[in-house]
Each structure stands twice: as structure tokens, then as C-alpha cells.
């Protein structure tokens, strides 16, 4: 009895959490006539895929998703590169000021985007990086490095010190120890940090909005959020585009939830 109640509760939770996206998915399969009818139907009466065709042919959604992928790949790569080196340095080499760096990174990760956005905009305009992917990639690299350093330094601490010491006895140089022994051991942590950074890139809004303001350069989140403002842009297309932009995240989450949770708890809770 208690068990049944418990499972019912879990099912109720799942419905509450997944329902909004299921609803936009169902909407995306409806015909225009069915969408603008009252009361709304649950299951589409004549499911159609026209909305998917239209959203790719008549809006820039394909471009937006491509733009986001390019920016996510490059900025995630740069962040993980910088943060692995820094995380290793902070966690395993007891140099003076290591903990000050860690506090610096923590403090920077709390900065409200609004306080950096205007200056960044003016400076990027001066060096002609507004409406350039490179501009946003560099900004994201700085923006998300702090949280990645935090996650990775926690991860590096969990690798036993003996590994490194025995390598040292064998006469390996510091750089070789880092790249040949520690980085391979830290790969799961790096993957978790990379996933989290990529999700953050997919999420980020304000800086993307101001740095890539040209329509064809927009990222998916910004581009779709601006659809309802464009004249008479219909809801069947907005819901379709939103569903398509959310889909990759569902896959990432489904396959990697364990890594993501591990990384998150390392970054946010443990210290």
C-alpha cells in the first residue's frame, strides 16, 4: 500500500516536470486550425509535420541551432583547457595564494552579467568583435571558466597523490605527469564539467543578445525568445522551434545525468 502510494507520487512528479515540454511537442504536431480552437485538444486529431518543415524553411532556426553548436563547441573546449590547467595547479600544487585564486574564481562566478555586459559591449565594438562568433566565444570562455575551475579542482583533489609521486620517482617531468597521467585520470571530471559548461552556453541569454544582435548570427535561445515579438509569428512555429531547441538537452540529460549531477554537486555543494 505504502509502496503504491510512493510510486504514484513519483509518477505525479514526472508528469509535473515533463508536462510543459510534452505539451509544446503535442502542439507542434497540430494543424493551425486545431491550435486556435477552444477548448484545446490534448492529442492532435490529425498529427502533421508541416510545422517542422515550415520552421526550417521560413525561419532562421537551422542557422540559430548551427550558431549555438559552433559557439558551444569552441567555448567549451577553451574553458576546459584553461580550467583543467588551473584546477590541477590549485588542487595539487600547494603554492602560495592557491586558495586566494580559488576564492577569486568563486567570487567571479557570482558576478551579475548585467554589470559586465555594457563595458564588454563597448570594448568589443572598439576591437570590431561585435556580431562575430569569436567575440562571444572569448566572452563565454571568461564567463564559464570560474565554475569549471571550481568543479575540476574538486575533482583533481580526489585523485590519490601516490599516482603522481610514483611517476616522479620514475623521473617524469611535471608537464608529462600532468598530460600523460593525471589528465587521463581526470577525464570523467572533465567530461562532467564540459557538459555543464555546454548547458550553460545553451542557456546564456543577455550577452548573446547584445554581442550577436544580427538576426542570422543569433543563438537558438535568443533567436527563439525573440520570435513572439516578430509580427504575426504563429505559435505553432514557436512551439516547434522551442521543442527542437530543447531536444538536444533532453538527450544529453538522459545519457549523462550521472556525470552532470556528480559535477554539479562537486561545484556547488562540496568544497
Amino acid at each position: 500500500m505504502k509502496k503504491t502510494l510512493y510510486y504514484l507520487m513519483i509518477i505525479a512528479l514526472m508528469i509535473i516536470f515533463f508536462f510543459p515540454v510534452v505539451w509544446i511537442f503535442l502542439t507542434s504536431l497540430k494543424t493551425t486550425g486545431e491550435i486556435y480552437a477552444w477548448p484545446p485538444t490534448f492529442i492532435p486529431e490529425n498529427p502533421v509535420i508541416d510545422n517542422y518543415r515550415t520552421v526550417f524553411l521560413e525561419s532562421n532556426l537551422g542557422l540559430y541551432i548551427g550558431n549555438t553548436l559552433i559557439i558551444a563547441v569552441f567555448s567549451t573546449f577553451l574553458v576546459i583547457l584553461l580550467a583543467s590547467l588551473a584546477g590541477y595547479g590549485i588542487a595539487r600544487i600547494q603554492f602560495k595564494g592557491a586558495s586566494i585564486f580559488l576564492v577569486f574564481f568563486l567570487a567571479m562566478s557570482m558576478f551579475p552579467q548585467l554589470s559586465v555586459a555594457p563595458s564588454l559591449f563597448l570594448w568589443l565594438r572598439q576591437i570590431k568583435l561585435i556580431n562575430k562568433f569569436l567575440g562571444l566565444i572569448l566572452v563565454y570562455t571568461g564567463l564559464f571558466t570560474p565554475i569549471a575551475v571550481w568543479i575540476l579542482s574538486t575533482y583533481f583533489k580526489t585523485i590519490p597523490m601516490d599516482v603522481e609521486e610514483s611517476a616522479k620517482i620514475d623521473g617524469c617531468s611535471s608537464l608529462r605527469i600532468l598530460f600523460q597521467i593525471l589528465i587521463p585520470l581526470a577525464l570523467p571530471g572533465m567530461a562532467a564539467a564540459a557538459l555543464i559548461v555546454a548547458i550553460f552556453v545553451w542557456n546564456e541569454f543577455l550577452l548573446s543578445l547584445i554581442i550577436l544582435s544580427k538576426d542570422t548570427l543569433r543563438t537558438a535561445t535568443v533567436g527563439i525568445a525573440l520570435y513572439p515579438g516578430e509580427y504575426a509569428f504563429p505559435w505553432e512555429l514557436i512551439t516547434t522551434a522551442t521543442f527542437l531547441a530543447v531536444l538536444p538537452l533532453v538527450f544529453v540529460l538522459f545519457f549523462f545525468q550521472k556525470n552532470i549531477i556528480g559535477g554539479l554537486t562537486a561545484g556547488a555543494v562540496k568544497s
Partner: protein
Amino acid sequence: MNEIARRKMFGLFLVLPAFLFVFLVLFLPAANTIIKSFTEFSPMNLQQNDFVGLKNYQKIFGNEEFMDSFFNTLHFAGVSVFFELILGLVLALILNKALAFRGVIRTAILFPWVLPTALNAIIWRWLFNTDFGFFNSFMKSFGLISRNINWLGEVSLAMNSMIWVAVWKTSSFIALILLTGLQSINDELYEAASIDGASGFQKIKSITLPLLIPSILLALLFRSMDALRSFELPFALTQGGPGGATQTLSLFGYRQFFQFLKFDQGAAVSVVQFLFILVLGLIYIRVLKGERDT
């Protein structure tokens, strides 16, 4: 140089690239914003740069729209974080007992968190749609409302609707933080309490909650900081409307900067917001340090 000193130099050398990037992209721009808030400055005239003291602050505090968004932000952050914490706690207590379907359950609770805030806002805008939205039809079929309601368009309702959207998205993340805290509580404590004849509720009250306080505090600070800088939620859900009812500090500041090009006053707005977050951030670092020392 001896070997230890060389190794320490190597450590510093590894941290420097990350430090430089973060310094250039976050620290310098923020410092520049703070300086500009004390000057008269416009992006149209980069040469003009006169120190004017607190004039920009006087101007924004004399601006009714600013004061409204100031209180909106506090209202939004206070109420949404309160409900998120309560729901998060309930969720965490339920999930802590979950033995089967762990993967699916994890995916479910993480899902609202990975959903981009702006897209979540768009989804809810459709669910809340007055004429064709699911929300109205749902409420009507249970007889809770008799006519279709404009959830996002009425001054008295828009803020609550926005809070609801935030609570839906973030409670599960709080649950996740609390869950880690719950799992670190030693089971023997509960067993001992059971032997002494404690009820389930008593156990929650005198074991779970006191031991969970550090995690609760962390979740609280984490989310408050986030809620205080809320930007894309009102931007994509209501554009701050109706009549400024859901305009937050971030949205107001953004408009000063990029719509009205009042760079100096926008800078003052973001410094005010920054101070709020700074205070919370300092408490946060304190708590983390306390955690580490014990």
C-alpha cells in the same frame, strides 16, 4: 632555484591563463561599470567622462520606474525562493527514499534545470495563453475559474504567474542540493531514534532538519543570488509588463543601457544590484569556509 620553488612557480604558471581570461572578461568590465556609475558618460560620446559623484544614483533613486523594479526584484526573489525551498525540501525527502528507477527520477528532476530559462518562459507563455492556453482549459475543467483569465496580462496576476514559472523550474535544483545533504546524514541516527520510539515526523524535525541546515543555507544563497539578477525570465515571458509589473532590476538596467543609451545611469543600476549580490556572496563564502573548517 630549488625543486620545491620551481614546482610552486609551475603551479602559478598553470593558473595564470585562466586567471587572465577571467580578469579581462569579468573583473575589468565590472570595475569599469562601477567607475562609470560615478561619471557622466554616454556611448555616443566616448570622450566625455566627467566625475559627477552620486548624481547618477540620485537620478535613479528619484526615478519611479527604478524604484518599482527594485521592489519587484525583491518581491520576486523573496517569494519565489521561499516556495522553491519548501517544495525543494519536500521533493528531496521523497526522492531520498527512492530506490528503484533512480536514473529516470534523476533525469526528471534535472530536466527543468537544463531547460534554458528563456525557452521555459516561452513555453509557459503558450501554456498561459488567454484564448488557447492549456492552463485556462485545465482550471476551467476543474471548475476553478469560470472565464478565461489573462494570467500574464493583468497587473494583479502577472508577478504571481512569473513566480510560478520560476518555482516550477528551480525547485528541483534545490531538491538536488538538499539531496546531497540528506545522503550525508548517518543512518544510525535514524535507527537510534526508532529504537527510542520516535515517529517519522519527529525524526524529520529533530534529526533531518538540523543536520540539513548548512545545505539549506547554501541552496538559499545560491538561488537568491540567481533570482536577484533575473533577466531573461521577464524578458521572454512578459517584457516586464503589464505596465512594469514584472520589470526586474536587470531588465530595467538593460533598457537604460541598450534602449535609452543612458550608460551612466544603467551603470548605477547594476552597481545597486551588484551590492545586493555581493552581500549574499560574502555570506556564501563564509558558510562554505565554515563547512570546510568543521
